[in-house]
């Protein structure tokens, strides 16, 4: 079950999706020693920005058919606060692959987002200096200040961004792609050309919800979410994730972290069958905080299947 990813040795292929598991809050909420038997093989932090962010006004959640829309707004302490207060608490966690097995270290992957190349550079440089951080994930679902479109939706912009920060770190550089684009494989290729060591997908699909008739609409004009629009995740998006991961894995040579609606080892296996090296679990952890460990166990039980599918087969 143990797997190597960009030079990291992981106990198993199941990690968390950024922003879907707060290890520090969970360590307080749960009696079991979460830090010693962490449910994931690696820990991905929520997105960290240069300055602290309070996040969006509530409501931030809306449940859909087999899915969840979130409009959280990337609340975080900012780079300094994260490095000073959170990172030390995130370092040194271990996971136990099977009951009774040797505890294995849980590397920390820090997810960062800037609104400009300068901000990304500052974030990457600061993380490079910290030994507790095993790898970096760039959240490029950030609007280009001019076009208003996500930087990650444009292969060329993405390539330039990655190239600009690539030189600033020796740590593995993962690019978290946006699914809200015409050709995610081209974006993945752009990230690869720019020097990414891996890509991860899918992030949430842009979605919206209106307030129930009887309730006021905090987002204005009937919009329920304080942030007006949000991102869809959960089982509802799994088939879209499978198609995008397959298209990306067929196009790029770098390893792929697949995610989107994974609820079981069988779902994780499907993403690996189309070419993912690691699988991230997000929304399912909300229903079951130990989902990562369960899915890793189930994955171990599922039979190995055929290799990644080829480019043509996903056209």
């Amino acid at each position, binding site marked *: 079950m143990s797997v190597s990813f960009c030079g990291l040795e992981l106990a198993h292929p199941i990690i968390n999706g950024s*922003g*879907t*598991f*707060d290890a520090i*809050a*969970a360590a*307080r*909420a*749960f*009696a*079991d020693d*979460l830090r010693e*038997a962490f*449910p994931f093989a690696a820990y991905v932090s*929520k997105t960290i920005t240069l300055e602290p962010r*309070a*996040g969006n*006004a*509530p*409501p*931030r*959640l*809306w*449940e*859909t*058919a*087999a*899915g*969840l829309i*979130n409009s*959280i707004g990337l*609340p975080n302490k900012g780079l300094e606060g994260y490095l000073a207060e959170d990172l030390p608490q995130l370092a040194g966690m271990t996971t136990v692959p099977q009951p009774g097995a040797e505890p294995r270290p849980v590397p920390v992957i820090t997810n960062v987002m800037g609104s400009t190349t300068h901000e990304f550079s500052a974030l990457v440089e600061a993380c490079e200096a910290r030994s507790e951080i095993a790898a970096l994930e760039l959240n490029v679902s950030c609007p280009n200040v001019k076009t208003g479109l996500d930087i990650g939706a444009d292969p060329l912009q993405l390539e330039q961004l990655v190239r600009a920060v690539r030189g600033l770190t020796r740590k593995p550089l993962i690019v978290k792609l946006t699914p809200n684009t015409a050709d995610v494989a081209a974006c993945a290729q752009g990230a690869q050309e720019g020097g990414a060591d891996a890509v991860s997908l899918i992030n949430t699909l842009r979605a919206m919800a209106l307030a129930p008739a009887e309730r*006021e609409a*905090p987002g204005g004009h009937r919009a329920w979410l304080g942030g007006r629009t949000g991102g869809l995740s*959960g*089982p509802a998006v799994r088939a879209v994730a499978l198609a995008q991961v397959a298209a990306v894995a067929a196009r790029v040579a770098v390893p792929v972290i697949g995610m989107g609606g994974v609820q079981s080892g069988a779902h994780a296996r499907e993403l690996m069958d189309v070419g993912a090296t690691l699988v991230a679990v997000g*929304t399912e*952890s*909300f*229903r*079951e*905080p*130990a989902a990562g460990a369960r899915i890793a166990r189930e994955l171990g039980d599922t039979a190995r299947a055929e290799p990644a599918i080829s480019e043509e087969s996903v056209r």
Partner: protein
Amino acid sequence: MSRAPLHRRLLTVSGVDRLGSYLVVRVDDPGGPQPEPGQFAMLAASERWGGGEDERPYLSRAFSVARRRGSESHFLLEDVGPGSRRLSELRAGERLWMLGPLGRGFTAPSAGRRAILVGGGVGIAPLAILQDTLEQDATVLLGFRDRERAEGAALLDAAIVATDDGSSGHHGLVTDLLAQEIERDPAAVVYACGPAGMLEGVRAICEVGAVPAQLALEAGMACGFGACFGCVVPRRGGGYLRVCVDGPVIDAAELDHVDAHAGAPA
């Protein structure tokens, strides 16, 4: 604060009782930790959780522990949508997933100070287990929309009732009763749970009277353990509190106002 096992538990419903327009669902939870007053659990039916209105529910739902009797945890349910409806359909012997107990509960009043429990609608739930654990008698003020809901008052002892339509008890708001009580005893401590409007009324009255108040808030929750950052309410002085981990019981002093979405179903 009691902490939850990381693994959610598959438990069996030992019984369901009607209480006016509410249901009391009793769940046998032998291994589970003793919940503290004000703590909650995330619940989901183990079978057919989904396929209801708008193809929901999908996520678990948060419910205050209303009472603990031996190894039984009791929950007070109001059917307001697909999740609470599905849970309301559960019969003795059927099973559900439980994660909990979660969150920060109430802190007992310092010796000698009288506790005033103020509840509204299904929000009376956490006040029952609080009353069970208080050393000295508390004053219990409960507000309901109508007579059928007011029957829920039987969940607590010696409750003074108010109804919006005057169909039973005081005709008006439970906060009217609270104002009188506080005038009578400014040294009292207030514990409240209910609709956002009621909680804001309680907060304002207590602020004016300089009476300490602990408010059990509610908010749409995806996880219940701090993972999603979805359940926030604005904190006094800026920023937000996560109701699930910073609450659900929050000191009124931490709030400028009670967010319109931070209350129990009205």
